[in-house]
Structure formats: C-alpha cells, structure tokens
C-alpha cells in the first residue's frame, strides 16, 4: 500500500494544485509539502528493502488489471528490491532539492508544479513496476511532463530542446515496445519448435516451466509480463535457447532474433543513459531546462536508462549480454573519453557538466560490460552517486545563473572571495565529480575499473587502460573550471554577488550530506544493492562466458 501511495501521491498533488484557487505562493507551498511527503514515503520504502534475500520484493502488490483471452494477463504488479529501493530513495531526495530550487519559477507557477509532481509519479512508477507492460506505461508517462517543463519554462531554444528530448526518447522506446511484444509472444507459445527440443531436451515453454515450479515467486500464477518470473525463466533457459526459444533459430540478416531484441531494448535504454552515439539530446535539454528540472533530469532520468538495462535488458537475455560484453565495453570507454574531451572544449558551464554526465555514465556501461560482481556493483553505485553529485552540480550552476544570468565560464572570476560558503560547497561537489576518494564519486569509478580490468571479454585490459585516461581529462576540465570561476582576481561583474541564500543552501544540503557520507562509509549502499545484483551475476556466470 505504501508503494502505491508513493507513486500516486504526487498525482494527487497535481490534481490538488490544478484545482487550488490560491495564488502562486499557495501552489509553491503545496508542491513543496507534497515533495517532502513523497521523500518520506520513498525513504521508508527504501528502508524496507534492507535484509531482503535475493528474488524477494518489499512492499509488493500484485493485482490483476487487464484480463483478456487466456494468455494476456496484465497485472498491476509493483514491488521494490534493493536496486529500485535505492533509486526510489534518490528520486525522493532530488524531489526535495528540486522543489526548494523551484522558488525562482515565476511563469504560471501552478502549471509548473503540476507537471513537476506528475513527472515524479512517472519516475517512481517506473522504478517500482515489476510488470513489463506497467513499466513501459510509466516509462512513456514521464515524457510528457518533461516536454512541457523544458518547453514552457526553459531557456531561449527551449522548444527545440523539448521536442528533441521527446523525439529521441520516443524513438528509443519504439524498440522497447517491439521487444516487449516479441517477448510476450515468445513466452505465450504452447510448444517449442522441434529443433530446440532436439538440441536440449530439458528446454521448457514458459507455461510448462511455470507449472514445474509453482512455489517460487510467492506462488503468483503464470504471467507473461511479470519481470521476476521472466527473469527466473531466463535464468533457467540459459544455454537452452533463451526465452525466445519459441522462435527456434529464426534469424534476420545473420543474427538470431534474441540478438535484435537485446540491442533494440539496449538502444531504448542507451538513449536515456545516454551512451555515446545517442547522447546529443542531453546538452541541449540541460542547457535549456530550468535549474530544478536539469537537477531532476541529471539526477533521475539518466538513471532510468541504467535501471532499465539491469531490470529488463540484461536478465532477459543473459546469453546475448555475455556475448555483447565487448561492444558494451567499447561503448562505455568511448562515452568516457569522448564525453570528457568534449566537456573540455565547452565554455558554457552547464553544457560542460552535461557532457561530464555523459562521461560519468560511461563508467556505468563499462561496469556492466565487465560481467563481474565488482563491476556491476560499482556501476550501480555510480548511478546513485552520480545522481546526487550531478544534482548538486546543477544547483551550483543554477545559483551562479540566478546571479549572473549567463553561464559563460570566461566571464566569471574570484567568486570564492565573494561567496566563500557557496564556493566551498561547489568545490566539494566538483571534487566529488572528479572522483576524489573520501567523496562518493570515487567508489563507482574505482569498482568499475576493478571490475572491467578483470572483465570477461578480450581486450578488457586495454579498454580499461584507455578508460583511466578519462580520470586525467575529467580532473583537467573541472580544475580549469574552478580556476576560471572561483579563483583568481575578483571579476568586476561578480563584484556584487550576494552570498548563498538560506533556501539555496537547504536545497544543496540534502545532496551534499550523502556525497560525503557515502564517500567515507559506502556500506549501506552496497548492502542494499548487492543481493539483487548477485542474482544477475550468477545468471551471467551460468552462460559460461563470465567469471
């Protein structure tokens, strides 16, 4: 019940705000109250995932939603395990910070807060759903509010950025829908083609497998769309033709259909992560979005890509995932180095941070590609930590933008001497982003390196060595930014910058504390996610291609 409340409370808030007759101030307060309540709910849900043994889900609800014909059961099946619990907690955290940072929004405030809360319903729903259909529905539900948030309250080229964001993600999610449909059909087949049963006799169809072990997954009856059941089935079918066994060895243009579906779904999530070739929407969306929205965009929406891969893409096709490790590794390292280099060439502070996000998410892909426990755990911790750090960085840029109304790095100087408290917080955020140990940015990168160095694809070592160059570039462009903005003589333009206000400080603190806390003591994070990730690693280990 708690989880459904966490998902639909912002929706309720949206309706209340739209109906509320009061002035802007009332809408703002209402929005903030709802954000805080959402945060409290999210943290309770996240806390409940502690001590969950693998395969179990906390706050699980499994209610039938659409029953059609015999095999088409779409269920409102939500639940939270370590992985989604952590990301839901991150969503709650960023909700508060973004809400506090939204005080600067003056244009039709009620519309803004309505869209803001609707966005959170979409995001929390996506993290919590354990039913592919429900996942896809929430996945697309959050696009619309984001389109309006960037489109109406954004910067000069907001319309272009908004529609570009919408088209990119929708283009990606087309392949996701195709994938879900093909998987749906393959699993509802009643008998396997003979070439599969000939090769490995113990391969079963989904319904037969479900009948074989009904007790697992708290006895829920066979449901083709339920993610836990399909993941367990995929684990069983490793080496026996995978979950698309019903297609036999139907292959298009030389690749088995599972290969196509895996890469199709990967594209859908890669657009969100963003991975190298699909990242061009990110800088535009970030530069044009208002500060609180780019905090949410960087903090949560990028994590959906990674989460989608871990929840849908990799567990469903472990065999293809293991074989595709090399390509993932290459994509990861290209994102890291390319993202860092392009960030180095930027003069707009926000665009630089956006490209640095591309580079940091490249570490996640590198971690996934390694197929090792350390790599995947490192990648997921990077997801969380990058959320807090990049959220903080965008707030930092927002504070500067509110004062200088421009983001050109070369037109700042000596802000440290005018706004010492703010500058200290900014430097902490920047050093966390550089990956300095003692701050949370280090763990994701370090474990991704450890994992990918002993990665199970050829050239893993060389790829890791190239990736380490990313560390030097990241340090270079961030330190140059610190030097141009915070140090040196006080730029006459920055002469009268007021020190950071209480509200701005309180919007940064909830992100600063975890950055330092989880840097010094990352145990709570790892305890939360390691159980649910180990099942994925074991599945991949079964394919024989991973250690």
């Amino acid at each position, binding site marked *: 019940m708690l989880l459904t409340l966490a998902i639909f409370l912002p929706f309720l808030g949206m309706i209340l705000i739209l109906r509320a007759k009061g002035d802007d101030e009332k809408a703002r307060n209402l929005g903030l109250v709802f954000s805080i309540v959402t945060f409290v709910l999210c943290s309770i849900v996240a806390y409940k995932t502690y001590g969950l043994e693998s395969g179990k889900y906390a706050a699980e609800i499994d209610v039938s939603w659409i029953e059609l014909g015999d095999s088409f059961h779409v269920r409102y099946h939500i639940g939270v395990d370590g992985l989604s619990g952590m990301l839901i907690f991150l969503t709650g955290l960023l909700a508060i910070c973004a809400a506090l940072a939204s005080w600067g929004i003056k244009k039709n405030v009620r519309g803004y807060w309505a869209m803001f809360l609707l966005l959170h319903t979409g995001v929390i729903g996506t993290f919590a759903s354990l039913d592919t259909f429900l996942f896809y529905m929430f996945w697309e539900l959050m696009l619309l509010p984001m389109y309006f948030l960037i489109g109406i309250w954004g910067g*000069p*080229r907001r*319309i*272009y950025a908004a*529609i*570009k964001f919408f*088209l*990119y993600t929708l283009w990606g999610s087309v392949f996701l829908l195709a994938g879900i449909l093909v998987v749906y059909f393959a699993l509802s087949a009643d008998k396997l083609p003979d070439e599969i049963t000939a090769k490995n006799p113990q391969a079963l169809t989904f319904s037969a497998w479900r009948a074989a072990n009904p007790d697992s997954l708290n006895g829920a009856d066979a449901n083709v769309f339920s993610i836990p059941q399909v993941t367990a089935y995929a684990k069983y079918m490793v080496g026996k033709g995978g979950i698309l066994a019903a297609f036999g060895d139907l292959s298009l243009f030389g690749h088995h259909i599972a290969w196509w579906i895996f890469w199709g779904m990967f594209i859908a999530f890669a657009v969100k992560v963003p991975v190298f*070739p*699909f*990242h*061009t*929407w990110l800088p535009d969306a970030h530069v044009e979005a208002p500060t609180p929205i780019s905090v949410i965009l960087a903090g949560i929406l990028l994590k959906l890509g990674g989460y989608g891969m871990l929840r849908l893409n990799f567990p469903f096709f472990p065999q293809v995932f293991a074989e595709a490790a090399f390509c993932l590794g290459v994509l990861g390292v290209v994102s890291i180095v*390319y993202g860092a*280099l*392009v960030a*180095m*060439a*930027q003069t707009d502070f926000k665009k630089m941070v956006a490209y640095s996000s591309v580079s940091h998410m490249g570490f996640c892909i590198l971690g996934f590609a390694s197929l090792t*426990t*350390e790599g995947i*755990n490192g990648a997921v911790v990077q997801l969380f930590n990058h959320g807090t750090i990049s959220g903080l960085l965008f707030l930092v840029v927002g504070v500067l933008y509110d004062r200088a109304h421009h983001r050109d790095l070369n037109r700042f100087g*000596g802000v*440290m*001497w005018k706004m010492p408290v703010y500058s200290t917080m900014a430097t902490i955020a920047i*050093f966390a982003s550089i990956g*300095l*140990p*003692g701050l949370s940015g*280090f763990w994701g990168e*370090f474990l991704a*390196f*450890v994992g990918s*160095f*002993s990665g199970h694809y050829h050239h893993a*070592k060389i790829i*890791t*060595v190239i990736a*380490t*160059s990313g*560390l*030097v*570039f990241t*340090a*270079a462009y961030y*330190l*140059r930014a610190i*030097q141009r903005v915070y*140090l*040196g*003589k006080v730029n006459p333009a920055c002469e009268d910058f007021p020190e950071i206000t209480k509200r701005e400080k309180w919007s940064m603190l909830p992100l600063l504390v975890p950055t330092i806390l989880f840097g010094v*003591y*990352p*145990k709570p*994070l*790892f*305890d939360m996610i*390691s159980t649910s990730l*180990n099942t994925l690693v074991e599945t991949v280990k079964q394919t024989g291609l991973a250690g």
Partner: protein
Amino acid sequence: MPDLAHSLPAYVPWIIFCPALAGVIQHFFGAKLPRKGDLVVIAGIGASLAMSIALMFQWAALPAGHYFVEAWEWFRLTPGADGIAFDMAIVVDGLTASLLCVVTLVATLVFVFSTGYMKGDPRYERFFFWLSFFAVAMLILTLADNLLMLFIGWELVGLCSYKLIGFWSEDLVNAEAAKKAFIVTRVGDVGMLLGMLVFYHYCGTLSMRGIFAGVAAGAVPATALTWAGIGLFFGAVGKSAQFPLQIWLPDAMAGPTPVSALIHAATMVAAGVYLAARMFPVFTPDALQYIAWTGGITAFLAALVAFTQTDIKKVLAYSTISQLGYMMLGVGVGAPWAGMFHLTTHAMFKACLFLGSGSVIHAMHHAQDLKDMGGLRKKMPVTFYTFVLSTLALAGIPFTSGFLSKDAILIEALGNGHIVLFSLGLFSAFLTAFYMARMVWLCFFGKPRNQEKFDHAHESPLSMTVPLIILAAFAVSFWFTLGAGPEDEFANQFYRTPAYAQEFPKTDAVAHAYWVDGKKPANWHASHGPRWFQIVAMVLGLIGLGVGIALFRSGRRNQNARILPAGVHELAAGKYYMDEMYLDAFVGAANKTADGCRWVDEKLVDGAVNLSGAVGLFIGDASGDADDLVVDGAVNLAADAAKGAGALVGTAQSGRVRNYLAMAIGVTAVSIIVLVFFVIG
C-alpha cells in the same frame, strides 16, 4: 612459521583521529576560537607525535620481524567468508613506525613555525584546517595495510597539496601551479591505479598480505608483475616528482613556505619512496632496474638545474628532487632500508633548510630572490647556524646524519654492482655540496646586495627559531652517527624487514635485502662500508664545499654567475625545456582533440542522428531563432528522409482530380499485374 602478527595497540587508530578531530573543530569553529584555533590543531598533531613515539618504542620491543596488524570490514559485495569485501586495515612495522615519527615530528614543528610565519593572514584558520587535513591524509597513507586505503590517503594528500599550493590563489599564478601539481600527480596516480588493478586481477585482493602471498605463489605472471611494479612506481614518480613528472614541484614553491617544508620536502614527496620500500618484495629485477635508473637520472639532472636557480626556494626544491632521486636509487639497487634511512634523515635537514629559508623570506618581507640577500649571518645568527648545520648534513659531511644515509645508498649501489649508477651518485653528491655552498654563501656571507631590505632584516621570533634548532639538532644528532659501529644499529633496524616480507619466500632480487629470523642476509653491508670509500666520500663533500666557497668568496660572482659549462647552463636554466614540451605535446594535443570532438559532436553526431531537420522545419516557420537551426542542422540523414518523403507526397497532392485518379488507377493496375504474376509464379 611463527605467527609474527600481533594485535594492534588500542591507541593506534587515535593517531589518525586526533588531527582529524582537530581539523573538524577547526573547520566549524576555527574563526571563533582563541588564536583562531591554531593551538587546537597543534595539540592534535602533538598528541599524534607522542603516540607515534610511544608506538615506535613498543614496536622496537617486539622480537625482530614482528608487526602489529588489525583489519575492520569496510563494505562487502558478496556474502560469505570468501566473498568479495574491502576492509580498512592498519599495519605497524619498522617502516610505519619510523615514517610515523618523521611525519608527526616534522608536522608538529612546521605547525608551530606556521603560527609565526602566517600571522596576520586573512584566512589564517583555513590554512591550519588544511594543514591538519593533510596530516590526517598522510597518516592514513602511512598506516594503511591495503593498497586501497593507501590509494585513498595518496589522493587526499594530493588534494591537500592542491589546496595549500593554491592557498594564496588571489593571483592566478598560484592557482595555475596548484592545478599543474594536481593534474601531474593525478597522471602518476593513474599509473598506480593500473598497478593496483593488475594485483587485484591476479591476487583477488588489495591487502598487502594477500598480494605478497599471491606473488609468492606465482599467481602473477612475470611480465604482469613487472608492469604492476612499474605502474605502482609510476604513482611514486608522480608524487615524488621523479623524472619525467618532476615539472610540478618547482612551481609548487608558489605555496607558503611551511607548506613547502612540510609537504614538498619531508612528507608527501617521501610517500613515493615509502610505497616503493613497502612493496619492495613484489618488484621484479627489471622493475628495480627501472627504479634505480629513474632515481639516478633524476638525482643528477636536478642537481645541475639547482646551480642555475636564483630563487632560494627553487634551489631547495631541485635539491629535494635530487635527494628523492637518491632514495629511489637506494631502493632500486636493492637496498630499500638505505632509501628509507636517507628519507628519515633527509626529512629532518631538508625541513630545517626550508624553514630556514622561510624565516629568511619572512625577515626580508617575502623577497625570495638571492639578488636581495647577502651578509645575513650577522642579522639572523640562529637561522644562519641552523642553516649551515643542515647544509653540512645535506652535503654529507661526516658526523652528520646525511653522511651516513647518503653513503649507505652509495655503498649498496657499489656493493650490488651498479658501477655507473654509483659514479653518477657520487658526482651528484659532489654537485650537491657545491650548489649548497653557493647558496649559503650568496645568502649569508659577502656584502648585502639590497641595503634597504638588509636594514629591515631581523631575527625571526622564537616560534620560528625553536623548530629550526630542534631540526638542526636531528640533522647532526650523534645517535645517528653512533650507529657507525656495530651492525644492529638502532637507526636502521627499523627498515630491515617490512611487514609480511618475512613470511613468504622471496624472489631472488629481494633475498639479499632482508634479515630473516634475526640473521643478517649474505651481502649485508655495515652502514659504513670499506675504509677507502669513507675517505673518498668525505673528501668529495669537503672539496664541493671548498670549491663553492672559493668561487664566491671574492664577491665578484653574484647569483647570476654561470658556473656550469656554457651549453649545460642554458639547458639546465631552461629546465631541459620539459615544461614547454609537455605544454604543447600533451596539453595542446588534448585541447586540439577536445575542440575536434566538439565539432564532431555538434555537426556530425548531433546532425546525422537527430531529427533537427524535421524538428527545425515545423518550428522553423513559426519562430525566427530556429532558422539558424535548420541551417546548422544541415547534415541530418533521418530528418532529410522525413522531409523528402513529405515533399514527395506534397507534390503528388497537386489538387488536380485527374492526377489523383491517374495515380490511383495506375497503382491499382500495377498491383494487379504484380499480384497476378505473383500468384501464377
């Protein structure tokens, strides 16, 4: 194998927590505390010093080869005993105990010195906060038992050096120097990280015990072990400013002098040597060869440059690089104990020299150039005498600690058959004495070159001179020299056997370096070596000083005098043009590729993949600013396809009914023909 490990005394973790606590208090309440919290910080480091000394004696009481070790689980990835977990661990053996004492002693003295030196600075409390933060990081690095904690201490120390070098970053020169230091050391750290990754890949753990066991069991193939060794050493090259990454140390002198003394003379830069000594058992012969040669080359080249420097701190900086080269040479030739011994003694007298130069600079109102000095011995007697004593130690004159530690390295080099390196080291020793004599003479003797500054010069207050005196005492303290006699001198018993090395069979290169169960290894050289060598070393030191004094006594040569042969002087003065080479080779190339990637991103990737065309099109006619967008999004495949097809259908929709009919019926006829053939076929 007797169990050599002992449980850690309870107070050891407090060695780190005291300065950490002081730092936290300083951070939050620094400005409001009396004397802006410097006493709190000094108390913190003082406590650590006391505990370190107590720990040293407690360790010395242990039988030879034993050590304290303790581990706490930090975080765990897979459950179960053999699951993947990373833990915090502390080990205390000879190396740790000695370095702890050196670090805490020098730190305490530098903190005291800073109260005088930094008096009146607007951000006085921030300075002390960063000093205590540095102390914490250095102590973590020293006490770390696994490479992960060592790496974390390593990078935090890098952060503190960045913050302290760039302390006065009002003017960009200091900020630039700080950035350069951080990035160059980070290049070194990348090398170290790769070394760690190799060890983790093969030995499955980062704890030193696990690595030594893995190497002993042959888990790491020879080439990988060499590369890992060189990788780790590359981290040390970055941190200890060895060739080729030594460019950042001279610029680091932009920081306040106490910082230079503490970080860039005694502690941080020594961390590289400490790492090399601690991980000595895993270095393969050709890794050691690489280390030795790096050390030798650095020592020699840096010594040459020292001659051409006019800034008092720059001379000392190059002298430090040169001495660090010596220590690396010591480790490289298979005598980590000699390297560590030189590190200990060097920390003392180099800190004294830096603080001495600090007091001179303080007296001369922040004038650092030799052209304003001369004849200061009368005005600043205490600084002068401590400076001269430390110079003697640095030059390696008998009855000083420097003589013993430097000669130990040279003897080991000779003993282990590195003739070329031995001669290079010997010549560098001579050069060291020479340039130190030059500097001392130009600074303290002869006629004052800047009368106005000379008149203002006065002796530094007690808070600055007392640390000088203590350090100078260590520079010449006899208990070092007393060790000239029997083998088990108190001084170098600390470095005989680092933790765990005892418990595992050694690779051959290492066998001769360690005492096993109290027995001396085969070619163990007494620290004083053959008689003829002692005389040669002593004579060389004295000749160096004499020549230096002789050249500059006449007063005809000032600081710009060109002592080195013509060609060599330009080369050395220009620091071998390495800065410029790095600037356009690496930094320039990185910026060019960055701009190239940006162009690629905006034009090709953004254009080819996105629908900016179609998007631009239907916005284009609505809002003006999108026009440039349609132009800029020129190269866009997907967008053109959508637009092209749209245009095609548009033309088909010509408005003439007959066209419609013709097209409709035409297409139907064609499809009929195709299908008929299809069905028949």
